[in-house]
Every structure is written in C-alpha cells, then in structure tokens.
C-alpha cells in the first residue's frame, strides 16, 4: 500500500519558491532519508506533509486519503507523527507529562473534564511503559526545559512515536548531538517496528545510508535524485551540489 503520495507539490513564500513540483511516493514500511544542502526545502516539504503549512499547489495523500487541505491535527489523527528541526516540546512540563499528553492525543482522550488524568490508569501505564522502553525513567519528573539538548531530542522522538504512528517524520533528529547521543537516537530509529513508514531528514551521509531503504536528494526546492546508496553515490549532480558543499 502507498503510505504517502506527494504529487507535484509547490510552495512559495511571497516571491521565494521553497518547493517546485516535488513528487515522491513511499510504500508502507519504507524508510526514506531526505538529503540536501541548507535551504533545499526539506523542512518545508515536511511542513506541507504535516499540515503546518499548506502547499500552494499539488496534491498530498496519506494512505489513500487526500490530505492536501487538512489541518495538522487531522493529519495526526490519521496516523502521522513528526519531530521538528527546532525542538518543540512542552518546556515547563515534566518529561512524564509531555509523554502523557502524547498518549492522550494518540488515544483521542480529549474533552474529558471530570476524572483527574492521574486516575486514567491505562494512560499512565502506557506513558510509563514508554519511558521504560526508551530509557527515560530517571528523567520522568524533570522539567523538559532542564534537560540537555540531547535528552530533549530523545524525548521528542519518544513523543512522536508514542502514538504508534503509521508514518513518522523526523527532521534532523541527530543535528547538534554528540557522537554518543547520535548513536543513541539512531539506535532508537533502528528499533522502530518495520511496518512503520519513516521519512527522515539527515545531513550525515553515513547515518543516512545506514538507515535508509531509499534516499531522495533535494536541491533548490526540487528532488534532483532518488534511489539506493549506489545510485546516489554515483550521481554526478549530487556530488557536485551536495557532496561538494560538505
């Protein structure tokens, strides 16, 4: 089944063209890594997939549903989860509270006014199990704003996958991390279920080739190359504009 289908998507900000006729398609369970130099349009593509911005033209569908005009929360309810390039968490809340909200969202537990959240045993259990599974138990009661940057990135990944999404978008999850932290995050990604479709933006070629089933390279708002490791390494245009920059 086709998990994500992006057809000829264009996005311009005023006069700036961030995306020009992007076409990409992912099968369910496929892991795609997006490469591309700064300003290539990778994050803009993520935003238009997740609904944070609306595509100027083109069509995006998720598991067969046309989502081009849907708001982000509706897309999330269809099974899409994401992390942001700039860490986006609930800074004044604890790690546990952050994960609890993610679990509430995933289980569509909203507009419940009476019983305290503490007493929803299934939600509490699920959140604690996630912390356990991803080695965050010790940080459970710490405020997110007091965590190290690396820890915050991990919390954000856990938050994104706590709803068992069908498709997960990771925007540079390892950027700015130490080599050890990068390994931890990559380990997390590797451990994810094989039927979860993943799109990841990554600058590190080695990391990219290791995770990806397929790679797409963006440049100036276009996908200029697509294929497996050999195809990308052998692509002249890619070496010119991307590898040259590195």
């Amino acid at each position, binding site marked *: 089944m086709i998990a994500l289908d992006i057809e000829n998507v264009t996005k311009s900000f005023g006069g700036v063209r961030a995306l020009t006729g992007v076409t990409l398609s992912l099968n369910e369970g496929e892991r795609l890594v997006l490469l591309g130099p700064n300003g290539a349009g990778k994050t803009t593509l993520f935003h238009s997939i997740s609904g944070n911005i609306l595509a100027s033209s083109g069509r995006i569908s998720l598991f067969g549903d046309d989502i081009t005009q849907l708001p982000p929360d509706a897309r999330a309810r269809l099974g899409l989860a994401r992390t942001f390039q700039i860490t986006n968490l609930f800074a004044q809340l604890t790690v546990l509270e952050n994960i*609890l909200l993610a679990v*509430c969202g995933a289980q569509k537990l909203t507009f419940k006014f009476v019983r305290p959240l503490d007493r929803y045993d299934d939600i509490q259990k699920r959140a604690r199990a996630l912390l356990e599974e991803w080695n965050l138990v010790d940080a459970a009661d710490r405020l997110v704003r007091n965590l190290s940057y690396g820890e915050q990135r991990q919390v954000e990944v856990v938050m994104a996958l706590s709803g068992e999404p069908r498709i997960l978008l990771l925007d540079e999850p390892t950027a700015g991390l130490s080599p050890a932290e990068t390994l931890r995050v990559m380990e997390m990604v590797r451990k994810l279920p094989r039927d979860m479709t993943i799109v990841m933006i990554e600058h590190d070629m080695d990391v990219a080739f290791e995770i990806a089933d397929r790679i797409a390279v963006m440049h100036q708002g276009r996908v200029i190359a697509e294929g497996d490791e050999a195809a990308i390494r052998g692509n002249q245009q890619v070496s010119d504009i991307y590898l040259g920059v590195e």
Partner: protein
Amino acid sequence: MRRYSLVILLAIAIFAALPYVLPTYYLSLTTKILIFVLFAMSLDLLIGYTGLASLGHAAFFGFGGYVVGLLVVRGQVSEWIALPAGVALATALGALFAVLALRARGSYFLMITLALAQVVWGIAFGWRTLTGGDDGLPGVKRPTFIVSLADENSFYYFVLLMVGLSALALVAIVRSPFGHALRGIRESETRMLALGFNVWRHQFAAFVISAAFAGLAGCLFVYNTRFVSPDVLHVVRSAEVLIMVILGGVGTLLGPAIGAAVIILLEDFVSSLTQRWLLILGIVYVVTTLFAPRGLVGLYRDYFSRNRKR
C-alpha cells in the same frame, strides 16, 4: 490525598465559623473577597493554563451582573431565573468573544478582548433608558433561594457555597485530561496540533468556561452590592483582576485566589488613606513583575525549594 482532605475540611470549618467571629463589616468584606477569588480563578484558567492573556474579562463579570440587575430591577423576574440567566448570557458572550478573539494571538488577542469589552462598557454607559447609564441601577434586591439571603450572614454562606463549588469544579478541570491539554497548548500550540489535538476547540472551551465562572462572580457581586453600574464593566476591573492573577501566581488557581484577597484587603485599607487606588495598583503590578514574576506562590515555592536544598 489525606492531607488535602484535611486542609479542605479545616478551610470549610474556618469559613463556616467566620460569621460568628467577624464583625459585620469584615464579614461583608470577606464576601467580596470570595467573589473576587472566583473572578480571579476564572481568569487564571485562561491566562495561566491556556496561555491566553485577556484584558477584557470584566465584560463577562459585568455582563452577568447587568443581566441580573436588569432582570430584577426592570423585569421583576424571579431570582430562580435571573441568576441562571446572568451566568448563561455571560457564557454566551464568552462564546462570541472567543470566536472573534481566537483569530489572533499574543498582544493582538489582548487588544481584541480589550476592544470588545470596551464595546460592552460603552453600551452600558450609553443606553441610559435601559441601564440608567452612568447612574447605574440601584435596588437589586438580594435573592431568596428557599431562605432569604437578604442579611449579611446568609448571603455570605450563599456566596461561600457558590464559590466553593466553582473552585472544586475548576480544580477538577485543571487536573482532568482537558486541563492538561490546556497546559500543553500554553506551552506549544504546534506541538499539540502535531499530537492530534484540536487546539482551537480547546481554547474556545477554556474561554467559554472561564467566561461562565466570571459571569457567576459578576452576578454575585451585583447581588452583594445591590447595585450595578458601568463600573463593573470598566477596563480598570479587567486590569485589577489581571493583577490579582499575576500577583498570586499564574497557573496555580490558589495563587490568584490569594492575589484576590490581598488586592481587596489592600484596596479596603488604602481607600481610607488616599483616592489614588489606580496608582497603588500600578505599583503593585510593577513590584510584582520585578521581584516576584511568578507571583506570591512562586516566591513561596522558591523559598521552600531553596531551604530543601540546604
């Protein structure tokens, strides 16, 4: 949990005993404090939990009050209808304001709520034939709910009951999944959207609930003073309640309750010395933002966490 119940029982006992120990003047001052406690807590739901700073909260307070005043004085309507109508119409006004103001965020949200509230104030001020304009509407007699609430003692108990039940409801709301979602929205709307929450609906609901409790507080206020004038809708009222919330500590419910008590007591104390209440209010605001940005509750917590570290 045990300790909480104990504290609540103790508080109930103390508040229930007040009419036996306090002189009438201070009892009615306590009644007034309780009313503003409710008003401030209602605003805290919006500011402290949802992250929406409104500078027009007096609109709901005053509108609820005017509905009661008009129905009782002009319509001779039963209190069984007037009070629920006051709350219901304040709630409806909250829904209208929410739809208009939630198109904006931050200081624009603040400006829109302020502007809308000024419109309501302008109507109350200008529509003399209905509202009595600047002179207001005197003669709002105290209600009779099974027993007459005309005297200070029974009215105090009535207010205590209403404010107590409202406080319990607000505490339940902020602890519920809904209340946690509001905190999430305060921290990051985009993150909540990405988790599948309909942010607008949550903000709308928070706004309407907040307006409902502010409206109830306004109804009680008008019954308390037996009089309603545009003063209840004035921007100074909105600013005053905002300062109560900030002084006590946003996002704590208890803080704004304490802030309300402090401000009302201060106002009472200062009014015998000077007419410059607004100046004093301004000073309180500046001092709070400079020295206790997280309010009195924040100060208390800082003090205790520092002692624990030692």
